[in-house]
């Protein structure tokens, strides 16, 4: 009897095995594999060698692996669309571009972080594996075709970020940041998971394509679990990207975490979370009619987010806090694109991610040269006289800040223009007007930084402080390249925009 049954089971499972192995297409996750290996290798180096030699080896190794990851991402982006792991993960130009953003930004951050942490005096090598694990998590979030994979990627990312926020384990502010970030992050993960569970309950699947097929057949309002699930997911992602009213943790965490970690947290992970959410929304094939409530909700949140971010930034004194609120405001502009919920808006989103990542990393790299005393001198008063004593650094500061406030001919303007352009094209006039007014408000606090760097007379002695800064090669290259990119994209943004537009056709 048993002898009869076992072949029967084994036949069907053999077919299943063959099918699964055939659908694996593991090379579509090549960047993740390379960077995971890099993370493991650097982790081992961190465990074995703690001295300066180990730091340098670790630095070089992680640069190498991230660069390899970047190259493989470019290669994948050039391939046609394809599925891996039986459709759980898919690779296309959209995910390819975002993978390039993730690995590229991690690469830039690591290039600067090496000298930054040396100057800071506490160099913890676990920095390298953690950043690489975070990149792997982000890549899975974007490539995910299944809500479970999105959650998995998000957790890989988040756990790495919790530790990164507290990487300077002797600095109490860094520890405080880590605990706050961890508590809020765990909270938001629960929301996200609950949302995923509700969507699963409503549609019977966690696969995005299956959900899309289900929703195409019926209106989403027939099943209350779907909109409820989407809103819970919005809250979960909202915590991660610091959308108002879930932004409370942002200023403290950004201020407390070491500068280059803040730079990392404020760029790529936001791109990952927002692109994942936008991808989920768009691939769900929501009917325009049935999702009006959702559009309105996200639109209101977008306006509130950018307004609160900008208004709170106006009166801050600590530059890292200003940048925290500024990042909240930028999430607001990005949410405009999410709210439009169509493919052109996604192209605008990709373009904005590119630009925001470049200019933010450039600005933070510049700050990393100035940071002293566990970043405590990065206040408005603290940077007085920079423009006078180091005109070149002042020029870079100008470029980044004008770009952040969206003044032409910088990339920041092109990015905002693209978003508002898309908003007007889709008849979201009010959103465009409020967004553009907000960007005028934001000019004030970016100008204040310029003002203190250039215009206010320095306190006695602070000029000497700047003349002691040594430009190290890697950091200078990063600043120079990002500044050049900001200007270059600002003047001829066409090809990146076209790339973005092409990317969304494949989605």
């Amino acid at each position, binding site marked *: 009897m048993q002898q009869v049954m076992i072949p029967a089971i*084994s036949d069907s*499972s*053999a077919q299943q*095995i*063959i099918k699964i*192995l055939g659908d694996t297409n593991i090379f579509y996750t090549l960047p993740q594999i390379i960077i995971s290996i890099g993370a*493991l290798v650097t*982790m*081992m180096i*961190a*465990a*074995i060698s703690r001295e300066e030699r180990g730091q340098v080896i670790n630095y070089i190794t992680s640069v190498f692996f991230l660069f390899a990851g970047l190259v493989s991402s470019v290669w994948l982006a050039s391939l046609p669309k394809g599925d891996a792991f039986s459709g759980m993960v898919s690779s296309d130009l959209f995910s390819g571009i975002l993978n390039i953003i993730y690995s590229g930004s991690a690469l830039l951050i690591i290039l600067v972080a090496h000298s930054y942490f040396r100057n800071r005096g506490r160099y913890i090598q676990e920095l390298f594996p953690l950043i690489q694990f975070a990149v792997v998590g982000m890549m899975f979030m974007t490539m995910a075709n299944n809500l479970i994979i999105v959650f998995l990627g998000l957790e890989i990312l988040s756990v790495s970020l919790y530790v990164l926020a507290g990487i300077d384990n002797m600095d109490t502010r860094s520890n405080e940041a880590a605990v706050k970030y961890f508590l809020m992050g765990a909270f938001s993960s629960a929301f996200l998971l609950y949302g995923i569970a509700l969507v699963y309950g409503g549609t019977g699947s966690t696969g995005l394509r299956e959900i899309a097929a289900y929703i195409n057949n019926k209106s989403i309002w027939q099943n209350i679990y779907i909109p409820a699930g989407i809103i819970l997911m919005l809250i979960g992602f909202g915590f991660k990207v610091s959308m108002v009213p879930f932004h409370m943790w942002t200023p403290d965490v950004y201020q407390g975490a070491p500068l280059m970690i803040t730079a990392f947290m404020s760029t790529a992970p936001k791109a990952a979370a927002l692109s994942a959410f936008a991808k989920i929304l768009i691939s769900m094939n929501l009917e325009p009619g049935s999702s009006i409530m959702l559009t309105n909700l996200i639109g209101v949140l977008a306006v509130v987010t950018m307004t609160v971010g900008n208004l709170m930034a106006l009166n801050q004194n600590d530059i890292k806090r200003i940048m925290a609120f500024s990042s909240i405001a930028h999430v607001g502009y990005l949410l405009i694109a999410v709210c439009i919920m169509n493919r052109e808006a996604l192209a605008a989103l990709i373009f904005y991610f590119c630009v925001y990542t470049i200019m933010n990393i450039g600005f933070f790299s510049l700050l990393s040269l100035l940071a002293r005393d566990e970043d405590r001198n990065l206040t408005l008063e603290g940077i007085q006289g920079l423009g006078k004593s180091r005109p070149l650094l002042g020029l870079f500061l100008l470029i980044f800040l004008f770009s952040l406030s969206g003044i032409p001919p910088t990339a920041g303007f092109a990015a905002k223009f693209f978003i508002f352009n898309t908003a007007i094209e889709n008849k979201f006039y009010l959103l465009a007007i409020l967004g553009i007014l907000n960007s005028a408000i934001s000019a004030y606090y970016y100008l204040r930084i310029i003002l203190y760097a250039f215009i206010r007379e320095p306190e006695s002695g602070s000029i000497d402080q700047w003349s002691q800064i040594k430009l190290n090669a890697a950091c200078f290259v990063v600043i120079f390249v990002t500044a050049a990119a900001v200007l270059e994209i600002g003047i001829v943004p066409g090809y990146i925009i076209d790339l973005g537009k092409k990317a969304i056709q494949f989605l």
Partner: protein
Amino acid sequence: MFIHTFGPVAIQIAFAIGMALFLLIFTNAIGPKKYNPVKFDTYECGVSYFNDARGMFNVKFYLIAVIFILFDIEAVFIIPWSVIFMEFKKLGLGLFILGEMAVFLGVLVLAYIYIIKKGALKWD
């Protein structure tokens, strides 16, 4: 239909709650009540207590507990693997599936080396 499906469950829940309530109320009602100081003492397996339950533990306990849980959970993945191992072997993919587990365990071993090198298991 609802009753049909969930009826037994409901009955069971009602029975459980009812039983608990019954025991609480009934023992309270019929039992004799004689108090003395020993009865109000903290109960600790017959041995007289020596510390507050909310005392401090060495943080290493937590560290080791967390590490134990992590490795314990990873071990769970080995069970489904071993269940389907024979199927793969029949397909001639035995070495492949063995290699897969080797990779998985290899990563775990790396983590283990890391833990030892960092001194997480050192008690002093």
